[in-house]
């Protein structure tokens, strides 16, 4: 149905049209002649193939050289398609065959419409940072330079919080990127709107805090404290003390399953259903202290990295790991999975970062860095943030090809304890020994959010409705495979 419009063809056509200028002398007699001649013939413009079905109504002298709808790039349609069509020829009954054919057509139409909509309806475009003629390499650009080059509102998104007394900070952003939660090792926990700096709550837990995590909205968050895991309200009121989740190091929240997952010092992985308050599974992994853990956002599987260089993947439905693979020769120190669930990045003590195809368990790229990275994280647009010591480096599109130099670099004044990309914003949050820093990383955030999934501009009413709808759509943990 019409081929994709390529630039070269346009120019060729234009020249063709300009060459022969056709002049028509239209008189009544000539019209009659044409009518008589073409009474039984369908009008066909020379050199252009009409899709007869689409062009049924217009029969005569249409001046449109590109009839029909604007053709869509088949690659884009492929991106929106949901897999291969069913082979209709294999169906034996005629009625069912027609039914299936119709359904397949509808599905194709849906993919095409989505591809069209994607081009037109998305309001924002991604950020970028490019060097110019005299300085192509962007890796040496500092935050002050970038701040000077952008408007003051965006510049305000890059800030430093100097909180020296309460130890290295862990941080977490809500799903819509509006609220930030920071937790210092010595017990300081604060939740606030990071753009307007409006404080939601701030308190000291009087115990060591190992990890902080937002739950489904900005009204609840979980803090992994010295012994047990606590759930607090957005006002800092302690709501639950989950004694079964003890000695947690890392917390992960699975938003579509309403599950708070955690890895503990004793080598246990626990899945807690926060809507019901029930522990779904408590697995003893026998792999030792689990301090490296992340979730695969595509299928809600937990990926753990161990000190013997192996990676294990766990689901709440199996006692043994769903998959186990040898990633590095030495201890794995950082794991992260990208948003689409296709790539896995691991970093190890042997100063290498490997990119894997997670579904085929095949290594794609391997990079040698100067020092072993302790934290790595993928952003929404597949920028890889790597932190080692007090240096944070960001690599652009490490999954697509070999990268030789970083996209951006930032120094903090103390050792980095956690990095988190802010969803839907071009910002990276760094929790370090001296507090919290937020830096601008152009091109890291997804520019167009879907308001029905995560809406940074949610009103209270919308949040309430969204919460109810999410609870209704809560996926049963048995479906995590």
């Amino acid at each position, binding site marked *: 149905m019409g081929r994709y419009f390529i630039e070269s063809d346009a120019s060729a056509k234009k020249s063709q049209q300009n060459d022969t200028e056709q002049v028509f002398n239209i008189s009544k007699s000539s019209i009659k002649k044409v009518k008589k001649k073409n009474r039984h013939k369908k009008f066909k413009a020379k050199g252009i193939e009409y899709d007869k079905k689409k062009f049924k109504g217009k029969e005569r002298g249409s001046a449109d050289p590109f009839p029909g709808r604007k053709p869509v790039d088949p690659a884009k349609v492929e*991106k*929106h398609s*949901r897999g291969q069509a069913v082979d209709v020829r294999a169906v034996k009954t005629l009625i069912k065959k027609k039914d299936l054919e119709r359904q397949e057509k509808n599905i194709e139409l849906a993919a095409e419409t*989505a591809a069209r*909509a*994607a081009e037109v*309806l*998305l*309001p*924002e475009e*991604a*950020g*970028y*940072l*490019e*060097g*110019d003629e005299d*300085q192509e390499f*962007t890796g040496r*650009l500092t935050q002050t*330079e*970038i701040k000077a*080059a*952008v*408007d003051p*509102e*965006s510049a305000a*998104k890059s800030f430093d919080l100097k909180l020296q007394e309460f130890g290295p900070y862990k941080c977490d952003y809500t799903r819509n990127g509006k609220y930030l939660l920071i937790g210092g090792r010595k017990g300081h926990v604060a939740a606030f709107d990071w753009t307007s700096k409006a404080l939601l709550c701030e308190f000291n837990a009087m115990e060591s805090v190992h990890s902080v995590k937002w739950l489904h909205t900005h009204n609840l968050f979980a803090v992994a404290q010295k012994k047990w895991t606590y759930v607090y309200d957005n006002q800092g009121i302690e709501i639950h003390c989950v004694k079964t989740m003890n000695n947690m190091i890392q917390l992960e929240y699975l938003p*579509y399953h309403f599950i708070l997952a955690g890895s503990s010092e004793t080598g246990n992985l626990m899945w807690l259903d926060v809507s019901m308050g029930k522990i779904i599974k408590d697995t003893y992994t026998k792999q030792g202290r689990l301090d490296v853990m992340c979730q695969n*956002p*595509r*299928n*809600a599987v937990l990926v753990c990295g161990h000190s013997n260089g192996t990676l294990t993947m766990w689901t709440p439905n199996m006692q043994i790991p769903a998959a186990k693979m040898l990633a590095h020769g030495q201890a794995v120190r950082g794991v992260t999975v990208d*948003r*689409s*669930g296709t790539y896995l990045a691991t970093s190890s003590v042997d100063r290498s970062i490997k990119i894997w195809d997670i579904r085929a368990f095949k290594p794609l790229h391997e990079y040698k860095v100067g020092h072993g990275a302790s934290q790595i994280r993928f952003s929404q647009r597949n920028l890889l943030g790597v932190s080692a010591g007090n240096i944070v480096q960001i690599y652009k599109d490490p999954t697509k090809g070999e990268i030789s130099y970083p996209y951006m670099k930032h120094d903090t004044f103390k050792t980095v304890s956690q990095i988190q990309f802010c969803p*839907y*914003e*071009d910002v990276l949050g760094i929790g370090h020994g001296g507090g919290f820093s937020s830096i*601008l990383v*152009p091109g890291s*955030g*997804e*520019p*167009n*959010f*879907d*308001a*029905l*999934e995560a*809406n*940074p*501009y949610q*009103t209270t009413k919308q949040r309430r409705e969204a919460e109810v709808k999410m609870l*209704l*759509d*809560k*996926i*049963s943990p048995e*479906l995590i495979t």
Partner: protein
Amino acid sequence: MKVKVLKRNVEDFVRETKHDIHKIHRNYNQSEHPFEAEREYQRALNSVKLDKIFAKPFIGSLDGHRDSISCVAKHPDAVSSIVSASADGEVRLWCLSERKCTSTWPAHSGFIRGLTYTPAGAQVLSCGDDKTIKTWNVESPSDTPVDTIVCKNMVTGISHERKGDRFATCGEATQLWATGRSVPIRTFQWGVDTVHCLKFNQVETNVLAAAADDNSIIIYDTREVGAVRKVVMTLRSNALAWNPMEAFVFTTASEDYNLYSYDMRKLGRPINVHMDHVSAVVDIDYSPTGKEFVSGSYDKTIRLFRAMEGRSREIYHTKRMQRLTNVLWSNDDRYIVSGSDEMCLRLWKARASEKLGVIKDRERVSLQYKEKLKEKYAHHPQISRISRHKQVPKHVKNAAKEHATIRQKKKRKEANVNKFSKDPQFTDERQKAVVEES
């Protein structure tokens, strides 16, 4: 250095005044929507469960008759008017939307066996045990009939053709009448048995189907001289109904607890057997869409079947509803009227969890989405388990168990006989119902 940082204009994403609708921007990329299949499955599961929660099919009962209902008939076009007759000869007109009796009069001095509207809906024809066929005016009802025809024998059924002014009655003999005549135009006869049920085809308006007492079904054509085809079954058919959408399909309600759908062109084998009742099926009526039908049975239950399927999709029962005598599917495909022995007509919803009130656009879209989801995930075990589950009265459940045992025994015996015989005979379930065809 060229730099651009994501910056969103708040005005583009937040509504201007509280009287506007919220701005919802969508991104249809798959990366924004993980777990699509799982969430859809969860929604399908929820909607199936909600269906069961909201399944309240009984709407109300129409009281008034002082004897068990013997016939009901529905208006050819109007949706809310029906007429019913009881065993003591009383005829009542009902308005279904108000659930009230609009008028009533004593029509016959005995049992009323048949009731039908004329195509315009202005008159009602009734026939009964007192050997008369009476025509009543419906718009201005009165005690005296417009016309009375006296017959030689008892008239056990009546049916009016879809267009025109002819109607047929059955009894000792099947007769074709025209309005205004006191003598039948034509008499059809095949065999010597009485015919107790008669129905005109709604599409092929010249074709009649009749159920006779010798366990047979006879197809008559009013254009030809007599009967066209006859099929004899194992047991008697109590009632039959034509599919209003398929010209050649009719379904009979048989004494052997099943319903048989036939293609009138090939009467040798029914196209479908509908099994689920545990006692004789007494009446059947098709939905105006032609895709479903309702059957009432002697086992005090109403079952709804899909025309192509062999098992019921729904069962309606109440402790207060005794033996069914008649069932009817309303013309707007939404309600079912059942008449039973305890002098009550009951009004039910055709789709038990349907909302009857005004449905707004968004609600309708949401309901359609749920329907489609249920269809998509219908084969998943959890979902099919929930949608199949029906609360069934104890006597029906026990009887069904017994019948299942009996059927299994017969099957096993047949299988064993075939295993050890020289020429095994395999007859399918559908063929077994037919004795002979002519």
